[in-house]
């Protein structure tokens, strides 16, 4: 378990679990964006993502995206509980992932993949 020494000199909690949460969030948002694109690319993916007939493929895109996010969080949590990583760097990378995910959910972008 690593610790983080702040300016005050006091020892605070390890940043590991937060680093894991940030990376998992980035992975989850990008995965969700990929599921949005996949529904445009392939009819069989659209069917695969249609978990609810009333809701349509949005039901699968969101469910699978959330599952990827939570699974990534659990795995990364165990990885970063033993490993130290710069919090600021993790935040910057997570923002790159989140930005990419937001781009993937932008209609003009994902509709360009429609067949």
């Amino acid at each position: 378990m690593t610790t983080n020494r702040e300016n005050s000199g006091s020892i605070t909690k390890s940043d590991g679990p937060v680093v894991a949460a940030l990376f998992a969030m980035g992975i989850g948002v990008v995965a969700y964006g990929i599921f949005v694109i996949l529904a445009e690319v392939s009819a069989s993916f659209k069917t695969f993502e249609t978990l609810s007939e009333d809701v349509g493929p949005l039901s699968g895109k969101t469910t699978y995206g959330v599952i990827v996010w939570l699974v990534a969080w659990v795995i990364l949590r165990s990885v970063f509980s033993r490993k130290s990583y710069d919090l600021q760097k993790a935040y910057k990378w997570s923002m790159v992932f989140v930005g990419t995910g937001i781009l993937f959910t932008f209609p003009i972008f994902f509709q360009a993949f429609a067949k």
Partner: protein
Amino acid sequence: MHLDGREIGALIHGMGFGALFLLAFSGALAGFYSLRPELVTALGVQERVKRLKVGVVAMAVAAWGTVITGTYIIYPWYRAKSADSPKSILLADESTAGWHDFGMEWKEHIAWISPMLATVSAFVVLYYGVDLIKNDRARKIAMWLLILAFATAAVAGLFGALITKIAPVK
């Protein structure tokens, strides 16, 4: 004065969870901003962090509540195959089709990013607790996650309000 089932559903989604989300965001943002050693006493920190925890958790719960009710209660009414559903009405006229093709498509997708961001922001606050005041980097990260969660929800909320004005769910 009468509200039918669909109007009540829309109220829970927009005015219930949506309003709670807005309220929690305002409180949490103020809490993050003022959580600095030079602004609070040692005793004050305990109270501020407790309030901040309530704010960020409420915001995350409201964000999940908004997207789940929106997706599983309101959206099926919106996209129903009947000719009088909002989606059918919007697509029937070329001048309003963009509200579905761009507005609704963006709204329904971007909205789901907000609860993930809000949850991680809440996790950061719950994890560090009172230590957050000594960890300015973590405080700022949690605050910016909260702001981004709000921004993504604002896009969804804005399009939701505009689309409802043009083709309300009835």
